[in-house]
């Protein structure tokens, strides 16, 4: 039942944003709304994990533990973003970057965006899945081009075009799936549940082709190299909370879609095919992101490339499979979402303060904004996979899985790339965070709501990092539940 609740709230909020004039009132309302969503999603997750069964309502909405998990991730980040938007948008209005009206539009779009993302895991019909994901693109395109200057418009254009093309391929794949399904001569249907039910009997070749199209198509949206090209542009130009949503969860929804089809493919043509493709693309993503991170100048682009790296790791995790691999990957989905959101909020504050993305100019953030600086420092290490932060755990799980599977070369590459990226991150962030404060910079005190958002995420990063090693059993058990789908 919670599912409708979850889906309804964003719609109402969007309407609210349209009706309510006063920003001050609405922004808090917004945050509260997403808190409600979060609570609901937690309840949902509990229900799904504890009860085996996968619910479905009149064959349109279908969800099991897996979708519940993704809904949970989305709502966590959405809540954080809503919280952070309060201070961020306010600052923008005060500094006259955007008008009241623009802010209103922002909130409407924000809610629609969240709605479309929350819709993705909930639908059963693969066609609708496609539509939902396309919707996310169309809505977020406005948010990418929000500031309406040359860069942001260019970014938005690239984003919308490349993603649409990718999505078209995904649609092609979907059609081929339905074709393979229709060859069985049963009822024509695009429902995932039906397809999984008799995936075993489908034509292998067509499934293979179809999956390639799906992989490339949704892979474009997920930012797997070499289809990742839109990602750094969009992430670096979007409004900070939106960047967090984009790299935190938008990519993950695409991954979710790939998984859904992947499950059918696995049932149809066996695991190896799916696995190899995922691992291959994952490694390529790692390699490419590694290179770009090393020589990056733009703070937000740096973070964007990080998302590519982590998506790569995630896809490797899923590609390896098994309890360790899948568990690690799912954990990584969550950890990366949280950490990356934190980093983007931090970067947002820094960019606001220093009025530039260029990391050669930014110095001494710790001095000017102690809180943000500290959070960025912690976040950077978390992102680079340092204990006691959560990403370390999931990375280790994935590496373990890869190694135990006997992919020694992949293990080697994984370790190597992660080490190099670690070096690059520490290098960049130690330079922008420490050092002497540039002239004309004063220490600013930061609004409470912003701090709240940071703390909300940071607590999760640490807590998971510290708690996880001690609850592996329960974790494994949970993963099994999740992957019953």
């Amino acid at each position, binding site marked *: 039942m919670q599912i409708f609740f979850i889906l309804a709230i964003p719609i109402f909020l969007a309407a609210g944003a349209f009706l309510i004039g006063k920003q001050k009132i609405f922004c808090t309302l917004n945050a509260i709304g997403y808190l409600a969503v979060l609570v609901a999603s937690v309840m949902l997750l509990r229900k799904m994990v504890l009860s085996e069964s996968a619910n479905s309502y009149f064959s349109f909405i279908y969800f099991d533990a897996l979708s519940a998990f993704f809904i949970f991730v989305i709502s966590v980040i959405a809540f954080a973003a809503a919280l952070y938007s309060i201070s961020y948008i306010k600052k923008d209005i005060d500094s006259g970057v955007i008008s009241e009206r623009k802010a209103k539009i922002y909130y409407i779009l924000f809610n629609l965006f969240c709605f479309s993302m929350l819709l993705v895991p909930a639908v059963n019909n693969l066609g609708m899945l496609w539509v939902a994901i396309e919707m996310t693109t169309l809505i977020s395109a406005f948010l990418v081009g929000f500031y309406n200057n040359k860069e942001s418009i260019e970014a938005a254009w690239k984003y919308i075009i*490349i993603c649409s093309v990718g999505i078209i391929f995904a649609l092609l794949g979907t059609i081929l799936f339905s074709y393979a399904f229709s060859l069985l001569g049963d009822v024509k249907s695009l429902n995932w549940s039906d397809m999984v039910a008799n995936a075993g009997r489908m034509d292998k070749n067509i499934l293979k*082709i179809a999956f390639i199209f799906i992989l490339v198509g949704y892979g474009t949206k997920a930012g797997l190299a070499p289809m990742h090209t*839109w990602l750094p542009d969009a992430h670096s130009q979007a409004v900070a909370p939106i960047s967090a949503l984009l790299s935190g969860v938008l990519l993950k929804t695409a991954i979710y879609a790939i998984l859904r089809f992947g499950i059918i493919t696995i049932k149809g043509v066996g695991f190896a095919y799916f696995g190899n493709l995922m691992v291959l693309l994952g490694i390529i993503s790692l390699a490419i992101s590694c290179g*770009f991170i090393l*020589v990056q100048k733009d703070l937000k682009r740096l973070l964007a490339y990080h998302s590519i790296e982590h998506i790569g790791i995630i896809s490797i995790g899923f590609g390896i499979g098994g309890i360790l691999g899948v568990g690690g990957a799912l954990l990584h989905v969550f950890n990366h979402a949280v950490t990356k959101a934190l980093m983007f909020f931090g970067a947002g504050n820094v960019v606001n303060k220093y009025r530039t993305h260029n990391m050669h100019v930014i110095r001494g953030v*710790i001095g000017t904004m102690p809180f943000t600086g500290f959070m960025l420092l912690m976040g950077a290490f978390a992102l680079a996979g340092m204990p006691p932060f959560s990403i370390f755990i999931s990375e280790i799980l994935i590496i373990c899985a890869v190694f*135990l599977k006997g992919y020694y070369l992949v293990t080697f590459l994984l370790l190597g790339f992660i080490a*190099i990226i670690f070096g690059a991150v520490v290098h960049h962030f130690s330079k922008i965070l*420490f050092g002497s404060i540039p002239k004309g910079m004063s220490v600013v005190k930061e609004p409470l709501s912003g701090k709240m958002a940071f703390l909300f995420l940071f607590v999760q990063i640490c807590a998971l990092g510290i708690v996880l090693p001690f609850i*592996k059993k329960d974790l494994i058990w949970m993963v099994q539940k999740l992957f019953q789908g």
Partner: protein
Amino acid sequence: MEHLNIDSLFLFDPLSAFFLCVIFLISLPSAVYSIGYLKGESSGLKTALAWFLLVLFLISMGLVVSVRNVFVFLIAWEIMSLVSYFLVVFDTKHEKSIQAGTIYIVMTHIGTAFLIAAFLIMFKYAHSFNFAAIKSACSLMPPQTRNIVFLFLLIGFGTKAGIVPLHIWLPYAHPQAPSHISSIMSGVMIKTAIYGIIRFVIFILGVNSSWWGVLILMLAVISCLVGVIYALMEHDIKKLLAYHSVENIGIILLGVGLAMLFISMNMPYLAVFSLIAGLYHLINHAIFKGLLFLCAGAVYKATETRDIEKLGGLIKKMPQTAVYFLLGAMAISALPPLNGFVSEWLTLQAFFLGAFSVEGGYRLFLGLCAAMLALTSGLAAACFVKAFGITFLAQPRSRYAQNAKEVSLSMRAGMFFLSFLIVVFGLAAAIIIKLLAKVASAATGINTSSMSFSLNNFILSPQAGKGVYLSTPLLAAVLATLGIAGFAIYKLVNREKAVIYKTWDCGYYKLDSRNEYTATTFSKPFRIAFSFFLLPYRKTQKIRESFYHVKSFAYETHTTMVFKKYIYEPILGLVFRSAKFMRKIQPGSIHLYLSYIFVTVLILIIFMRKF
């Protein structure tokens, strides 16, 4: 992967206990010292932060040496590195400390990557992260795999320990931290790497091929020499000490490597004995290096410079610190009857006694290693004559040194405690060695109850029957009596008191600090003798008033950092060049991007059958 619960998390065998004891023996005085050191150094908040980090650092190190689960070990290990990184960059204003921190954390993380690889291999065989399980599984490992694991572990821990050529971070990181932290880092933290080697290679993996020991011995010898030679060239006092850490890690590893060699040759007595020597030097180095860093910190606190060329004459300004530093210097250059002497003597004896038992080729090898160790201690002595002489003796070379003051009580207390330990560990050798025997037996699994290393509580006698004895208390007594006797005779015959007059100046009218010997000139003979390795080069430039008249010459001489220049910089360059090249694939043209997608689809479809 088994469920971790707390009770199966910790283990306290003598080895862990020993290392815990080392950690807290050094950290306690350092903590006391830091009270005075941090005063007036920075704001209250920052001081609190420093304390917090210090505590966290100690806890993490304690965890590292006392957990029994590889996974938790790894986490503790990384936390240790992270905290120490924060301590290195503690002084965030300086570009240098940030750069140092970066080099440090990157190097140590690369090491960790190798550790992870090694642990993964172990895990593959044991299907458990528990030490005991892995230990039992390692015996089933095929020899090739064992060798790989060994090499990975060696690289991983070697990076932390600062074995040449992985020592690159050490001289950058240690000096940049606050002094009490450098003393802990250099005294204790790098020892955790030795713990790792002993725990994982000797205890868990088990040594069964003799080339492991030989490899470690070679690396150790190289580390000794390289460390001490660079130290001789160094004039930043804390950097100098950091290089000496490289050297001493080498000496410790000589003991450990010898132990591994003898284990693989199945000579229990010698194995235990040389491990004892290694462990003894380990704790000794922890003590005197800790002390020396504290003294260096005191000097820095008093004079605001670490460049010994600017110092001098401090023995009159800060007499107590001078005495402590002198004790530390004597200990580190292995002068009797202090602790450094004992452990180096033991190490040498380990070589000599070993030579009786091994066969032909190994004998010569051991002999040469021993000779190199002797050379190292000689050079170390020279280096500390320089360090102490230039810093504390003669006349002050700058105003920094002129208006120096003796440091606060808490700092002196910290230094005093450590210098007291130096003497104790020198004189009570015969007792301590009994305790170390237990540790060694725990590490190697050899029963030492039947072995004797000392005649009684005063006289060491390794390998009974060889008639080799050393008794530091006796030696100390003899030297003291002779010295005092000499002084007494001197007093007897001495009637008129000595004339105090200025140093003989060959008739030159004003002899001042500019005529003194400097550290650079002091180390010049060494620079020339080892020029094949140091590759010294000099820059001279004329400072002209006009075209015709040269006002003065600027002259500076440098030595080439061989490893940095010929190993690290090329690798880094390669990585960056390839990254820059890769950058070209994203020129910003949307059409190109679209074609990527297109091409990917085509390629994947064409090679579909391959997957």
